[in-house]
């Protein structure tokens, strides 16, 4: 079998290849976190399909020319899931996969939370929650309503716990008001946050209706099915009359059985032994 430890990938529309990329991104996440000894596990693992669909299928971007003026733009609003972004950037060619092992080390370009300017491909600094949607909306507003640029899209991902933040709903109103059809947001609906289940901490009931009532086009999908994510993004691009919200229902810690569904893995890295176990579970073959 080909060694894929450091392999980089071009965009593809092949399901098997997309699933394989998501699996490798999960391996990268486990290795990075175990090496770093701190960081968040559950969210990044659950979001592998979202980042795979974006960076290896939907988005127009050029890893060799990160500031390409015609690119699509991605804001990682839930900055604590940085490892999944770093893995997606490395696997698509922004920097060598080997560099992932420097995560959270002094002097690393892979800061604990993403920092613009530190690493190619980081569009904005994030970490404090709730600000990514506003920035994406501001960017989308410039493209659609001021510069009248067509066929460029702006993407953002958020955690479900993140939308406790008032800033998110300010942005939701804004994007609805200005009918930002070029804005596509994804919520990682994994039902956990640091203090426990989202529905215990601060219930997010009627989530679809919430966004629809803000004049968003809403899709509700299996966020661990990479084809479903790809298709939803295409539907979002077609919905030019409104911003699109893709509610990605995911399993926190997806792919690592002992982490799945358990909120204690939200903010914890695996130990070296646990990482070994996780990597065994993520070994080739079985499609997610």
């Amino acid at each position: 079998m080909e060694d894929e430890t450091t392999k980089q990938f071009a965009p593809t529309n092949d399901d098997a290849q997309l699933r394989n990329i998501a699996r490798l991104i999960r391996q990268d996440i486990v290795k990075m976190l175990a090496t770093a000894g701190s960081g968040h596990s559950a969210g990044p693992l659950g979001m592998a399909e979202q980042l795979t669909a974006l960076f290896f299928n939907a988005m127009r971007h050029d890893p060799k020319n990160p500031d390409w003026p015609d690119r699509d733009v991605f804001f990682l609003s839930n900055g604590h899931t940085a490892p999944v972004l770093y893995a997606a950037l490395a696997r698509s060619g922004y920097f060598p996969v080997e560099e992932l092992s420097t995560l959270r080390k002094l002097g690393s370009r892979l800061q604990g939370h993403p920092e613009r300017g530190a690493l190619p491909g980081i569009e904005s600094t994030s970490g404090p929650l709730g600000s990514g949607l506003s920035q994406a909306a501001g960017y989308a507003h410039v493209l659609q309503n001021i510069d009248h640029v067509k066929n460029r899209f702006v993407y953002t991902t958020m955690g479900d716990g993140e939308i406790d933040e008032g800033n998110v709903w300010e942005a939701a109103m804004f994007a609805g008001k200005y009918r930002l059809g070029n804005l596509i947001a994804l919520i990682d609906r994994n039902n956990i946050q640091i203090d426990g289940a989202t529905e215990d901490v601060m219930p997010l009931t009627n989530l679809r209706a919430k966004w629809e009532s803000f004049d968003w086009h809403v899709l509700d999908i299996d966020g661990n099915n990479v084809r479903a994510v790809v298709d939803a993004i295409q539907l979002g691009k077609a919905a030019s009359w409104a911003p699109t919200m893709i509610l990605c229902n995911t399993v926190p810690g997806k792919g690592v059985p002992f982490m799945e569904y358990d909120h204690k893995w939200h903010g914890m890295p695996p130990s070296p032994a646990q990482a070994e176990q996780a990597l065994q579970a993520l070994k080739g073959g079985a499609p997610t």
Partner: protein
Amino acid sequence: MSGYPIDPHALTEPTLEPIRFGFGRGLLAAGEADERVVALCADLTESTQMHLFKNRFPDRFVEVGIAEQNLVTVAAGMAHAGKIPFTSSYAAFSPGRNWEQIKTTASLNRQPVIIVGSHAGINVGFDGATHQMLEDIAIMRVMPNMRVIAPCDSLEAERATVAIAADPAPTYLRVARDKTPIISTADSPFEIGKAYVLTEGKDVSLIATGTMTYHALVAASLLDSRGISVEVVHVPTIKPLDEERVLASIRKTGRAVTVEEAQAVGGLGGAICELTAREHPVKVQRLGMQDRYGETGSPSELLEKFRLTGKYIAEDIERALASQ
């Protein structure tokens, strides 16, 4: 040799105009000069004088509603898309409410978002303590990458706004609501990062910013008639501070007094204390709000109560000199 022409009627019959009016004109001029300039407001468009820009460039104006967190983060996104966004609200709300968003998405992110805090200081008057922003200089000054500018009058606000747009970077621009005396002229200079000696003196350096520069001139004039020679140093840019000019004055006079319509802790007074402690330790008397909130009253009543007029500034300086 001041190099900063002062309106000849400044101390006798000054023309009064709110500083924010100069911002409104400056923004319009900046918008004419550069189509990248855009404006965002949080439901206070006429109060903050953004209506001039909005009427001229409706497509480049964004109304975000009463949502200050969104105000600066949408602006950060627009800056990333190549624009030069000016955001405005009352200073009590922006940067009063959205400091973290400013830090993360503008300052740390190095996006040229300009935060215009209007209605700063106690001259908001009747609205009371909730609306009298006094901590803004301090909280903005501690942010790396952030410039902090407090013009002394409407003409200087106009020049400052144009200068900021021509050199876009994260910036806090502090302007006031009430009508205040115009002391500069069309020929007075403004350069970001420069301080200006308005009157030369030998006994004390009176270092002022924003609305207090006028009152510093009044105080200097009163003290001059009592035989105390005051050098008024106008510091429209609190950060980056013109250390060279300020230190040159303090080295000459050997004594510094600061005055600002803001908390004396952490603001201009804090900046001057940090500078003198490091480079040239002298006594620094800090005038401004003394670790307390404001209250309801007319602007002039409040300025008197908190001893922020020329008369009281002169008294405080005289008393401090006498007790040495």
